[in-house]
């Protein structure tokens, strides 16, 4: 039934909207991507682009109200998560697909020993007895590199440092050997030397367990170091989807280019940073045409008329921009004739 060559997770046309008193916010507005086992997909973008909403939608963890998946499908090994019952969904959460979050400070329950927080998932999904689950959770703590795990397992989160808490989160997420790990800004709240440790650890465990990883981040450096392929998001859409090396060596979408140019470099000197002028459109009032048009240097009439599709180019990169369509060539010719 389930073919291992096929992607383990496939998201098609996903739309997650938030209905508030200010109107409807199209936080995620038609997203497509797929993930194979052992592969790492980066979803990158600036605040408000919808990357976190996308990650929460996969396990249907968006707070509702106001959030709701209004369209699209999320196929996990061929089964549609969007249509699952709560019971079916619970069997997947924390077992076959699990998540780690940005804030290790607040993502662990402050009054429950960390060992128990890991063990409860093991008892639930692996049907382990109390003792075995506890032993197993100590093993997991050892695996994520926590010193004296027997002692640490009995401690509550406030007794651990930020880096250690994120290790506990990882231990918890990987306890049931999931097939997909969603990491939502896992290192944003950590210091750089600790961030390096955590990213290294995720890579190491991925090689060991073989899960697919979705890395949600705003940091293009993290993407470059951890991901096989990247989806760049802007205002609820994917604007470019490319293998990591290609995205950095040959960015296509004007937004991707702008983003890369605005980064200060650690290995070069720049006198002035390139900037993207203007602001992201409000998700409540999205323009009809290309959502980046108002900030784009290549803007033409067609850009304001219609939202371009995410189209695959000859080199396999997908990009959502009129410049990479046949219409653009026609449009240019017309200009020349005039």
């Amino acid at each position: 039934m389930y073919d291992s060559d096929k992607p383990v997770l496939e998201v098609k046309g996903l739309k997650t909207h938030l209905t508030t008193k200010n109107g409807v916010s199209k936080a995620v507005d038609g997203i497509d991507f797929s993930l194979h086992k052992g592969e790492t997909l980066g979803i990158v973008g600036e605040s408000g682009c919808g990357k976190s909403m996308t990650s929460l939608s996969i396990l249907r963890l968006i707070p509702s109200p106001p959030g709701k998946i209004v369209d699209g499908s999320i196929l996990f090994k061929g089964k549609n998560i969007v249509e699952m019952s709560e019971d079916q969904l619970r069997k997947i959460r924390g077992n076959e697909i699990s998540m780690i979050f940005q804030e290790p400070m607040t993502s662990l329950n402050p009054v429950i020993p960390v060992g128990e927080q890991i063990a409860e998932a093991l008892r639930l999904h692996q049907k382990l007895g109390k003792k075995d689950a506890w032993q197993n959770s100590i093993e997991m703590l050892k695996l994520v590199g926590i010193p004296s795990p027997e002692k640490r397992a009995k401690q509550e989160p406030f007794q651990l440092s930020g880096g250690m808490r994120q290790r506990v989160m990882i231990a918890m997420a990987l306890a049931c050997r999931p097939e997909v790990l969603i990491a939502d800004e896992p290192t944003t709240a950590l210091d750089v030397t600790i961030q390096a440790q955590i990213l290294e650890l995720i890579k190491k465990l991925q090689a060991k367990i073989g899960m697919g990883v979705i890395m949600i981040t705003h940091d293009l450096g993290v993407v470059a170091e951890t991901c096989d392929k990247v989806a760049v998001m802007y205002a609820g859409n994917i604007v470019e989807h490319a293998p990591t090396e290609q995205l950095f060596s040959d960015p296509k979408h004007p937004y991707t280019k702008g983003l890369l140019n605005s980064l200060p470099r650690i290995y070069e000197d720049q006198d002035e940073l390139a900037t993207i002028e203007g602001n992201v459109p409000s998700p409540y009032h999205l323009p009809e045409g290309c959502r980046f048009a108002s900030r784009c240097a290549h803007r033409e009439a067609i850009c304001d008329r219609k939202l371009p599709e995410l189209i695959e180019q000859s080199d396999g990169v997908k990009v959502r921009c009129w410049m990479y369509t046949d219409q653009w060539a026609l449009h240019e010719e017309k200009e020349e004739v005039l």
Partner: protein
Amino acid sequence: MQAQTRKVILQVDHLKQYFPVKTNSLFKPKNYVKAVDDVSFKLYEGETLSIVGESGCGKSTTGRAILRLDEPTSGKVHYSGKNILELNKRDMRKLRGDLQVIFQDPFASLNPRQTVKQILNEAMAIQEVVPKKERLERLLELLSYVGLPPESLSRYPHEFSGGQRQRIGIARALAVDPRLIICDEAVSALDVSIQAQILNLLKKLQRQFGLTFLFISHDLSVVRHISDRVMVMYLGKVVEIAEKKSLFDQSFHPYTQALLSSIPVPNPKLNRDRVILKGDIPSPIDPPKGCRFHTRCPFVMDRCKTEEPELREVKANHFVSCHLV
């Protein structure tokens, strides 16, 4: 070299900032967080000196101590011939016109009930730098410096985006004609495209007004972009201080090296030999004896565990505190 001929605007000597910690026992001696422990450096007119380090290294505390936002435990901070730490309230208030600060969270540092006009007017009124009649003109001038439209004056902070709010914070600092601005994680909360705008703006203003910046940040890429010199701190101590080029070309302290190699670089083709430090940053309440970095240092020797290294000049204007060099 060049730096020695330049004028020193601020000189910090043996600055210490200890915060007492509550203990549970009535009888145990009081503990202290040695947030800043014997830090000395000079700041030259018109330059940008960055202080970089991870949480608990004391970089922000140093900035706050200089401005006396927290009274430092001991040390001297000389500004134009006077020790700031000995000034009385009135003189200190006068001095605050010269020394300004921009914080990380522009929203928290702007009064939500004041319009931009009120915020900027208040800053000017305290220092009495501009006669009342000329204030409106001055306000519009300030807005143009930071790239905000004139109609911003009648709006409230919450009506602006994060980047724009940081611009208001910068305008407020500029309102009093400062000479030195301390930027405490001023761009850390911003998205990269906005961060680039603010960094460019800071550089432009520095050229325009001959400002001196003390730039406090945890982000080495940003530091590299904006600084002339860089000071690296770890657990309340200076571990390395040098001209930017010298530091980024060849750093001597193992901590600086590790810090540099920990940064994720947006270039997937780059193959680096990474130094990944083991363990956590120790608590500043009970910092390691000897060299404070010895618990995580890949090159630790016996000497490091007992003897604290001095800050020594290893190259022209490049100081390192490590037994290895």
